[in-house]
């Protein structure tokens, strides 16, 4: 076991970690937008739209992320849409994350009892005010733990982008391995980097959660 040959590749490792973070944040933001839109559509009155969203959720939650990335990278060019590796992975991971966020956000919105909304309307609040002051705060608080743990899973899931040669952390690992032949050491270091990133995010989310959702939990 010899970790020394890896020392000179630290810049590549840092670059790879930055690409991984970019991929994670892009997919998370796009996925949350999909999630909010999907949750609104699922609670809406247009039946065909509801079926469409349901179909999307089941399709993306019941097939492997790896196959989704392959389909977007290898199959879409047949239809004239040729995306580079990073963009393909970003689109695939956004759709994957989006499918999970729809359910999480919908569950968050549904967790607010109906009579609280009615109480707000009785007090003469406008539709926006009811949403902003009565529906949104508890919905956010209830959805928060699930969203953040899904975010960490997304961070770990971006490693699949290496399979279409997007130059994120795991792909960098393959590169360093091919230069140094220190396979075990390389992957041990890569696992440690992912571990550090995942734990940092968990700690960050815990602190944000404590600060943002401080109001009393029980009466």
């Amino acid at each position, binding site marked *: 076991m010899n970790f020394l040959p890896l020392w000179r590749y630290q810049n590549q490792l840092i670059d790879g970690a930055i690409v991984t973070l970019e991929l994670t944040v892009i997919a998370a933001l796009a996925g949350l937008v999909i999630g909010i839109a999907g949750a609104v559509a699922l609670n809406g009155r247009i039946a065909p739209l509801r079926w469409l969203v349901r179909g999307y959720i*089941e399709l993306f939650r*019941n097939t492997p992320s790896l*196959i989704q990335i392959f389909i977007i990278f290898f199959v879409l060019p047949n239809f004239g849409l040729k995306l580079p590796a990073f963009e393909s992975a970003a689109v695939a991971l956004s759709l994957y994350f989006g499918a999970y966020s729809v359910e999480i956000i919908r569950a968050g919105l549904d967790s607010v009892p109906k009579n609280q909304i009615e109480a707000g309307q009785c007090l003469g609040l406008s539709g926006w005010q009811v949403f902003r002051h009565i529906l949104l705060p508890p919905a956010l608080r209830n959805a928060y733990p699930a969203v953040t743990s899904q975010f960490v899973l997304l961070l770990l899931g971006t490693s*699949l982008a290496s*399979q279409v040669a997007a130059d994120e952390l795991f792909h960098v690992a393959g590169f360093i391995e091919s230069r140094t032949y220190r396979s*075990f050491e390389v992957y041990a270091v890569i*696992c440690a980097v*992912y571990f550090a990133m995942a*734990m940092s995010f968990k700690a960050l989310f815990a602190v944000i959660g404590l600060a943002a959702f401080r109001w009393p939990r029980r009466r």
Partner: protein
Amino acid sequence: MRSFTLIDFVSLFAALRWTVALVALALAFGAPLALGLAMGRISRLAGLRWTMAACIQIVQSVPLLGLLFFFYFGMPVFLGIQVPALVAVTVAYTLYTAAFLGEIWRGGLEAVKQAQWEAGACLGLSAWQQFRHIIAPQALRLSLPPTVGFLVQLIKGTSLASILGFVELARAGQVVSAATFQPLLTYALVAAIYFALCLPLTLWSRSLEARLDGSR
């Protein structure tokens, strides 16, 4: 280049047996370990609780792909001998399964009220009898829906074994796609097979959840 024939279709389904085998191995070794982790997590010994929590936390904070590569290249380093790839892959999937199922089952065990343990103690049951006859059956009911949900994650996760060269469903898809130049047809078929495998489990998990919700 050749066209997509019945042979390709059959080879995809034949590869499915490796997907099933990986899931079976992961469950066979992972489930007992998960039970141990879950019991350790609710133990009275603080040291044991913390150790188990740390183990789970580590496995859950590393990508499954990283876990696979770590043991694929690491087993010879740890043991000093070459081991078959299947052993390394099984170890990785076992730890992955144990960490996630262990945490799910701990949730189930903790959801059973403390008074149930005390009631068992009052009836003169030993600690093991309390666990076996009073707590475990209730916890099992509670944690069945997320357990089935995790099974879906595991089936999807076996697709990563393709990256280490295992000819399971995803890898067979790559091979067929490369041989026939029909990525659209091949990957759509592979996705459809995974979907056909996972959707019933997802629906089952959801119906279990709905049924449990009503009974409480």
